[in-house]
């Protein structure tokens, strides 16, 4: 079976800084693949290249076997790439449901529909409600994004990504800045989604990552120094030296 996501020899350089240094990576269908690495290792830059907001200097990216290296971000979303942002990227006036419905709408082809009220279209609302429930935000369905707490905003990021019915979920630190309880709830939620979605997860919370991920890759200075199961990573001397030792 083809990998849902495959990255070959990806390079990205900002002036003298090599942000991505020959990354090879794959996500198998239904797999949760986590990327860990110290601050400044280039994790968010990598996600941005996979989503299409940042163009790599060299290398190739495949989604479901299709080369998308030159495909713009909005078309990649159409091919099934969904990204949750590390810093919540929302629309303050839109309710939780509005956000999810917008993501559903975007997947249904063009939006040159001028007459019917979008907030009454069940074809948008039903899948949107489902995504919001799956992200655990059902109680806040009609709250505008501006009224949400930090943790709820992270949940909404997840709800939007789920509403896109993605082939691959790119989750950029979904637990970042959350309190202990919220973080544990989010971990549980991701565990529930495991197997139903192929996911690439960036996360700092080591306990969460080691309990969730099928495979992990360790990113240091833009390069992946090791990919393996949780146990393999935990016991790898190179990884311990480069990263875990400091944690």
């Amino acid at each position: 079976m083809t990998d849902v996501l495959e990255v070959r020899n990806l390079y990205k350089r900002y002036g003298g800084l090599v942000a991505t240094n020959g990354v090879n990576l794959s996500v198998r269908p239904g797999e949760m693949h986590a990327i860990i690495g110290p601050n400044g290792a280039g994790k968010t830059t990598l996600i941005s290249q996979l989503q299409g907001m940042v163009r790599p200097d060299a290398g190739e990216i495949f989604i479901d076997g299709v080369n998308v290296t030159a495909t713009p971000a909005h078309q990649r979303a159409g091919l099934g790439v969904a990204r949750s942002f590390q810093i919540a990227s929302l629309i303050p006036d839109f309710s939780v449901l509005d956000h999810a419905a917008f993501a559903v709408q975007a997947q249904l082809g063009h939006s040159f529909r001028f007459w019917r009220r979008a907030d009454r279209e069940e074809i948008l609302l039903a899948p949107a409600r489902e995504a919001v429930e799956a992200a655990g935000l059902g109680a806040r369905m009609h709250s505008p994004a501006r009224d949400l707490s930090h943790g709820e905003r992270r949940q909404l990021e997840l709800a939007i990504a789920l509403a896109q019915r993605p082939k691959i979920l790119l989750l950029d630190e979904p637990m970042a800045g959350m309190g202990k309880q919220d973080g544990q709830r989010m971990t549980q939620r991701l565990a529930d989604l495991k197997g139903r979605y192929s996911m690439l997860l960036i996360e700092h919370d080591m306990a969460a990552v080691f309990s969730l991920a099928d495979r992990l890759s360790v990113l240091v200075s833009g390069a992946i120094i090791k990919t393996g199961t949780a146990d393999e990573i935990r016991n790898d001397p190179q990884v311990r030296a480069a990263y875990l030792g400091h944690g």
Partner: protein
Amino acid sequence: MADGASRPIRAALWPALVLIALLALAPALSIWLDDPFTVKIATRIVIFAIGAVALDLTLGYAGLVSLCQAAFFGVGGYVVGILAWHQANSEAVLAGWMGSSELALTLPLAFLVAGLFAAAVGAVSLRTGGPYFIMITLAFNQMLYYGAVALQKYGGDDGLQIINPLTLFGYDISNRYKFFYLALTMLLATVLLIDRLARSRFGVVLRAAAVNETRAIAVGVAPWPYRLVAFAITGALAGLAGALLAASQQFISPADMAWDRSGDFVVMTALGGVATVWGPIIGAAAFIFTELSLSSYMQHWQLPFGLIILAIVLLLRGGLAQLVDLARGAKKGGEAVHD
């Protein structure tokens, strides 16, 4: 909780319908006061309200500040003026067609031609963003303005007088009351159209991309084509308003296309409250009233007018429409005490 149950008043349609109903009383008031000037002012308010409500699709919902609205307004006016001129002078416009003073034909034409101009201007301008978009729409406004000045055949700098009586479906509508209701019907149609557009999937894209383009792209929507269509619709409706102005004063001139007039439209829309369909109607009325009353007191009426606008923008971030929100908010607060 039902969907949309707690829709805020800002997004509601009914205040616009109330305003239009109030405007509909203007001819009665005019007769009662025995002052024909009243209905003339009301007609002017209605015409500029069409332009301001239309601009709100681009400015308020899509978040793009265009300084080209007056140019499209003028294009619409010139379509009506030029076609009437050709009929009066029995000179063919093209392929033996002698022009027309029939508004049932020339109003839709003004709408279409202005829309095409707007589509062309938008296709170029929307490649830029932010302050560059403002500057490039301003540049296009001036291009079209000087284009009108260069129309020597149609009066050039002096403007174009419409000498033959204009008709609607064959009926003479030089009666100012009849004409007022024609313009008011067009305002009603504009309000209904913009309200539907803003709530449709199309409107969702405009509103989302106005606030957070990154998010729109991330879920798979590139906003450019939607913005272009919005810009063209805004321009087409401006053309319709300009056509009505030309018809109401039997005259159109490059002065109606000057760039400061484009600024006036932005002020009207922002003054009343962007991203509502009724704010720009209030804005247009407030603008024209203030212009009229201040200019009768002093020559440099723009100075106090500017100060008034500053005060409103600084104190009421949502424009005059926010006064209603504030009043309701105070009431709500009072109720909460009893809960």
